[in-house]
């Protein structure tokens, strides 16, 4: 068997990004993916013939522009279409819409509150300034703040440097946002209930907390860190679904000489004399390499693929206490036509091409959390629906449509477990709740499919079904992610690295952990060569 410079375990988007960068730097890289197709949770799957389902992630914004440019992803087929509106149908037959255009959004908000319409400009400007200040942190290697080593001090100086990009008052707003709940933060700005509701949903995506739980302010900020064509906070849809993105990264990686092995589950990371030297696959093959990089979740990496005896106790304790109980489901519906949402006026039919959020009020969202937090699920869940076939007609046969629904909350640790019957029951809850806003939805459904937290774990390897590889709460961010002193993509085992969402800056399609880790690996490899 050929010896590689590096083996990447797991072909999710970060594993692919990491492998592509290493390949580009001239390393001989093998990437091993457990499933028959790379992509991880960044995948498009034709589960019902002719209909392309987004079984994992569904939108893109945080993907670093450097990754797009440096890996030449457009050349390899990436096309991202803008997603331009969010609409919430309301129970009283009204609706609330958020557009990317100043005048349009202002007109919408003025229907509810003139004061909010005016505050909205200041809110957006404030958020833009804060985003501008903190965004460079995404591309930093988290330092160990307790260390006096030169590279840690240099990184600390860079972190401090971000404050120079911020006004003092914005830094104070940032501190409050980081520690408050999304709902409390928005209460400081607005009075319109549906405006606060759709804004606060950014604070609970993927997170097992309610909109009134402290910490959701950061999750909201996290979802503001993206951009599209240079426009901050814009979200987009990859042509062909998010699988279109992972395939473009895979093509870039292959063009840089990376060997991608699909359907090749890794059983064990081989460690000899305290150093990672390769992997053994479930099929019994061995791949040897100078270094191994795990793009997998921290739990399968350190609790399954690495023999615990190689890990220091405190590190193992950090991994064991890692909070990774997910509240999110993905539902996909194949539709025999466009469902009607009576709350959305015919003249605003363009709103159907954006996000349709079932989030009528902050109380609705908080109730959805309350229902689920003791091993249950929301009686009326929060949903973020999207009809990709209206953006990219290739997602469904002509005249038909596909709907992707991000759904919360359903406890990963469901009482009695996620049996087939429970799964079907919750799928009905989702469809029933959506039908309250779209009476003809049920008659248009040709096929329906759900990914529960249990499925997300079994199929994608996300422990607890957590879409971010673990909560994005303060104890699990930056130099604490996944473990203090080991947040710089290294691990206590020499030659073993991490490059997935379990590392800084965490979940969402960012490519940042994959790229940051690659840059560290390349720098170290170069040093070793010169020595």
């Amino acid at each position, binding site marked *: 068997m050929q010896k590689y410079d590096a083996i990447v375990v797991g072909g999710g988007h970060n594993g692919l990004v990491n492998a592509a960068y290493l390949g580009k730097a001239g390393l001989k890289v093998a990437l091993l993916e457990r499933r028959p197709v790379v992509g991880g949770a960044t995948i498009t799957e034709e589960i019902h013939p002719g209909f392309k389902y987004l079984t994992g992630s569904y939108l893109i914004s945080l993907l670093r*522009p450097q990754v*797009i*440019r440096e890996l030449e*992803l*457009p*050349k390899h087929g990436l*096309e*991202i*279409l*803008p997603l*331009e509106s969010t609409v919430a149908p309301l129970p009283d037959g009204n609706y609330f819409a958020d*557009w*990317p*255009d100043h*005048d*349009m959004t202002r007109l919408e908000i003025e229907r509810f509150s003139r004061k909010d319409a005016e505050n909205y400009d200041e809110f957006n400007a404030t958020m*833009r300034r804060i*985003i*501008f200040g903190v965004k460079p942190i995404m591309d930093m290697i988290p330092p160990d703040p307790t260390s006096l080593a030169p590279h840690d001090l240099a990184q600390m100086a860079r972190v401090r440097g971000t404050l120079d*990009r911020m006004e003092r008052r914005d830094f104070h707003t940032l501190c409050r946002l980081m520690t408050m709940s999304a709902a409390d933060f928005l209460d400081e700005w607005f009075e319109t209930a549906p405006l606060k509701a759709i804004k606060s949903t950014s604070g609970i995506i993927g997170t097992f907390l309610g909109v009134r739980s402290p910490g959701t302010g950061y999750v909201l900020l996290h979802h503001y860190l993206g*951009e599209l*064509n*240079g*426009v*901050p906070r814009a979200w987009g849809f990859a*042509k062909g679904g998010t699988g279109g993105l992972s395939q473009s990264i895979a093509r870039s990686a292959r063009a840089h000489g990376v060997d991608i092995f699909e359907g090749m589950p890794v059983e064990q990371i081989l460690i000899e004399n305290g150093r990672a030297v390769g992997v053994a696959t479930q099929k019994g093959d061995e791949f040897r390499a100078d270094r191994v990089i795990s793009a997998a979740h921290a739990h399968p990496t350190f609790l399954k693929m690495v023999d615990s005896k190689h890990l220091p106790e405190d590190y193992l304790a950090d991994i064991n206490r890692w909070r990774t109980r997910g509240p999110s489901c993905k539902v996909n519906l194949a539709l025999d036509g*466009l469902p009607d949402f009576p709350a959305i006026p015919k003249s605003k039919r*363009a709103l159907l*091409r954006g996000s349709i959020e079932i989030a009528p009020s902050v109380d609705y969202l908080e109730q959805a959390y309350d229902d689920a937090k003791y091993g249950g699920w929301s009686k009326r869940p929060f949903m973020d629906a999207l009809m990709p*076939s*209206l*953006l*990219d*007609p*290739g997602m469904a046969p*002509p*005249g038909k449509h596909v709907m992707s629904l991000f759904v919360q909350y359903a406890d990963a640790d469901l009482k009695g477990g996620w049996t087939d019957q429970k799964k079907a029951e919750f799928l009905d809850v989702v469809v029933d709740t959506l039908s309250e806003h779209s009476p003809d939805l049920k008659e248009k459904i040709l096929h329906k499919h759900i990914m529960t937290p249990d499925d997300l774990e079994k199929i994608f390897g996300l422990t607890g079904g957590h879409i971010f590889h673990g909560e994005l709460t303060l104890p699990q961010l930056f130099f604490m992610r996944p473990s203090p002193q080991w947040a710089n993509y290294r691990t206590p085992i020499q030659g073993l690295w991490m490059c997935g969402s379990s590392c800084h800056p965490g979940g969402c399609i960012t490519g940042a952990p994959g790229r940051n880790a690659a840059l560290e690996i390349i720098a170290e490899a170069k040093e070793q060569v010169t020595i």
Partner: protein
Amino acid sequence: MQRLKVTPFHSRTSALMQGAEWRRWGGYQVASCYEMVPDREYYAVRSSTAMFDVSPLAKYKITGSEARAYLQKLLTRNIEKLGPGHVVYSPWCDPRGKVVDDGTLACFDEEHFQLTAAEQGEAWLLKVAAGFEVSIENITDDFGILALQGPTSRALLKELVGAGVDDLGFSEAASFEVDSMPLWISRTGYTGDLGYEVWIPSNQAEKLWDRLVDIGFSYALMPAGIWALDVARVEAGLIMLDVDYLSALRTESVSQTSSPYELGLGWSVHFKKGDFVGRDALLKEKEQGTSPYRFVSLVLDDVAYRQAFAEAGLAASLPVQAWRGMHPLFDAQGLQPGYATCGTWSPTTQKYIMLAQVEPAYSEVGSELYFDAVVDRRRHRFCCRVVKTPVFETSRKKESYAKV
């Protein structure tokens, strides 16, 4: 009161207009964009179907026993073999070999051709016609034209007119009749993508619009304005009159004129066909290599561009609407070996691109030039590189769908 003319689709386009973003084109009023945000109109070109009202194109019916001989004299391109059902693109020049206008020519039969031009220019066509047995009829207002451009345009049109649309190869055209609407459809466009242009008699234009919108919803059809078209055509490296060049008939000095060689159109100048307007001058220019400029595409270093904004404390402002205007290009010494005529952020290639005319020494792929842009009230100089034209290319444009 004088008003701009409107197109046959005006009742429909004006109903869609959200932000009063109209513009002028050849004396007509057309949409810059319909939605308040133009992004989706552009993306439709590359991901579904954009529908452009291009009715202001000047249209001429050219008939007579010497129609072909006349067109050979008018155009720089050899159209000797242009047969019925085929369309070609060509510029035409004045006797100095400077471009007057450019457009497409379709052949219906040996004595019947149809020419389009960016602007009204009948007087010039008639001037060249002296002595030919030919009749030139301006049919601009007789027809509305909808350009359907994008990957789903074929499937969409197929639903309207039937499988016959599959038989249209690139640059081919045919007549169809649907619900007593006589349509003439050519597989042509101005976006570098798969696309068609559909001609309809003006008095039935609204009916066609409604049918297309109705069918189009399932194909994510978007009515789109000139801003979207502009980004797509810069990506495709296609020139525009009054942006990338001025008509030789309307320039105030010879320095403002352009020969086909300066516009990247040398491939459409054919000397073997015999005499045509501008032949002697063009032959001399070609043989002596005296063209002052070459037409190129440039990619601006957007890393430095973004960095300049970051240093000013701002998020990068990429030109998502194409800009137009003569912008000098500098060399390392600060001399000006050329100028850019338009530029845009290309969402599909994720690059900041420009079209430019540069001195031959700077026209090779990889040549470096410098471009000034304002970042937060200050002028900055950025490097840009000559790249292959067009920046965006897709196999969809010329792919054959005919059943073998």
